[in-house]
């Protein structure tokens, strides 16, 4: 089964071949490396930019202003912060011009902790991303969605921020993509660049299909009726493990993978909370002015009388950084035990 990095690579290939993607660029995105997480190996339209994040976003804007489609990468979201005003411009160009210039571009960037990345390879970006009106924001939790969301992002006429949970880059999917060979070794031989000299290597792409995942549509990963857990990215996996544990104690949990953070799938969340009466929103960005707080706000405004317990946000501690030592990292972001505790706590709470 393809890893998330391989799935992203295949989606970009599909984009080049069928969706008119003209440029894929960023720091170390082109040959020979093909990206620090190998997401851009073997592609036709990749190129290395100068080490200049503002230049990368500005270039993507310019390409999109000509109507050409491109995918730009910021190597780690930890280094996207000096482009915030440009991201504001990307988000407001269509609106400011009253519909004259849309920017069909995708910006992808690895986010989150989970790889012992220390202070500058562990930042999250979802809270800020959802404060950039005009953007759509997605974050996959598995290889198949990574593929499908990227195709949808490329096709979308709006700017899309594609957040890659970096801890999941090497995690293999559980479902084959249409056209993907069944054997991992075969896929690797086809699309992974060889170690050593790559100058003559060319990828041998499988015949892939358009398996887009519609933007704005969440997925109910586990059905349950006592409490709803809404999350995305690597915390879908973290929550799955936690939910298995509480299931053995007889607690029934519904797990929703949001997939698109904005515009988010409220009907899916709403239906679930109406059923369970309890909800926990889980993510690893810092907890103060966290995106989940907006979802809690909406929950209290619209679903107050369905609630059996206080809606919760379980997010990263409001710290300046994530320390390298595992003890520090694990105390900073929601871990399995935190999720288990929160679930058990919320089901105990009675109105």
């Amino acid at each position, binding site marked *: 089964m393809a890893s998330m990095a391989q799935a992203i690579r295949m989606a970009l290939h599909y984009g080049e071949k069928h969706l008119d993607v*003209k*440029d894929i660029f960023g720091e170390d995105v082109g040959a020979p490396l093909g990206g620090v997480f190998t997401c851009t190996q073997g592609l036709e339209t990749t190129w290395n*930019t*100068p080490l*200049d994040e*503002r*230049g990368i*976003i*500005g*270039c*993507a*804007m*310019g*390409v*999109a*202003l*000509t*109507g*050409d489609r491109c995918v730009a990468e910021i190597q780690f979201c930890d280094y996207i912060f000096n482009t915030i*005003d*440009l991201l504001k*411009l990307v988000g407001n*160009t*269509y*609106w*400011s*011009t*009253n*519909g*004259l*210039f*849309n920017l069909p571009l995708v910006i992808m960037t690895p986010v989150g902790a989970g790889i012992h990345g220390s202070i500058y390879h562990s930042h999250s970006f979802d809270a800020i991303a959802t404060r950039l*009106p*005009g953007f*759509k924001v997605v974050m996959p939790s598995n290889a198949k969605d990574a593929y499908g969301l990227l195709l949808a992002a490329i096709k*979308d*006429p*709006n700017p899309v921020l594609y957040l890659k949970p970096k801890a999941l880059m090497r995690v293999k999917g559980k479902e084959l993509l249409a056209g993907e060979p069944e054997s991992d070794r075969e896929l690797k031989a086809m699309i992974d660049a060889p170690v050593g000299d790559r100058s003559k290597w060319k990828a041998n792409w499988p015949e892939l299909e358009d398996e887009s995942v519609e933007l*704005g549509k969440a997925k109910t990963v586990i059905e349950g009726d006592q409490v709803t857990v809404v999350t995305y990215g690597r915390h879908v996996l973290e929550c799955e493990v936690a939910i298995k544990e509480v299931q053995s104690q007889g607690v029934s949990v519904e797990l929703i993978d949001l997939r698109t953070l904005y*515009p*988010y*799938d*409220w*009907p899916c969340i709403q239906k679930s909370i109406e059923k369970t009466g309890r909800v926990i929103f889980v993510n690893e960005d810092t907890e103060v002015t966290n995106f989940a707080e*907006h979802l809690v706000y*909406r929950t209290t405004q619209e679903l107050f009388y369905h609630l059996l317990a206080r809606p919760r946000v379980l997010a990263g501690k409001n710290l300046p950084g994530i320390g390298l030592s595992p003890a520090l990292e694990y105390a900073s972001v929601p871990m399995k035990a935190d999720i288990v505790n929160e679930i058990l706590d919320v089901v105990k709470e009675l109105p």
Partner: protein
Amino acid sequence: MSKSKSTLPLEKAKLLEIHDLMVKARVLEERLITIYKSGDAFFWIGGPGEEALGVPLGLLAKRGQGHNYDYLHLHYRCSHILTSYGLEAKNVFRQMMNKKTDPFTGGRNFSNHYAIPEWNVVPVTSTIETQYLTAIGTAHAQKREKAKGITIVTGGDAGTAEGDFASSLVWASRKGAELPLLIIVQNNKWGISTNYEGQHGEVNIADRGKGFNMKTMVVNGNDPVESYIALEKAMAYVRKHQKPLILEAHVSRLYGHSSADGANLRKDEEDCLVTFEDQLQQWGLISEDECKELRLNYEKETRMAMEEVRGEDGPEANTIWDHVYADNENADWRNF
């Protein structure tokens, strides 16, 4: 006594065309200032005094849509460039008075913030210097498509202190990946209230291009003839060699920074129009009376245009959600 045809620096018709457009552009800006002062607009910013550079630029650039035409990444002092392109005064006033008929932003943005897809005029933004970044992208796309168009970017002198200006130098000059990018600096020697010496150690801003193996030019942007000849050469070079060039033009800031500092005529700045009219009269190409008449005609025209659009409606409040997303997809979270 009229100068013989052969010694004129440009064709007579071209000189008169430049003059005509300079007057037209100046009158347009002066009308904008009047609109501001009479309380019909919230804010004015524009480019009176910089016409001797802008008008030739607009005459020489290749107007049209798509990669084969020139992309213009402008700042807020470029109505003169677009006057040469055929900009309609009425539309400028519509934007100035934030009418819903404002064809560039629908009443959403300040004056002189143009966005004209048919002419490759990409949206003017208030963020200083970011246009030097977006220019990289259109120039890259043109190079990729082996297109006939080039990208032209312009901005003020103070803004060149932003890293975005340096970005344009770096990205445009990479060996084997040089960009067809004409980088212009309209050096009016001011950044709001901070003077040139207060922000620059370099003698010429254009000199920074030398470190990047770029061709550079410094011109008297108050002289439309010198500007025209230099710009013609610069554009030809960029078009032919598909390489960047940086051109710095010394210009005047004739009415201050914006309405925020009064928008009053500064007598201590050279007025390029006065200088050019003296020159044209010396050459015997136009009389003082003809100059006056030309100005009066444009003043009348702009007054009528202004009066025509003054009564037009502003945008309706319920349109705030329009065009957040393409195809007017719902963007109000209350309705997700």
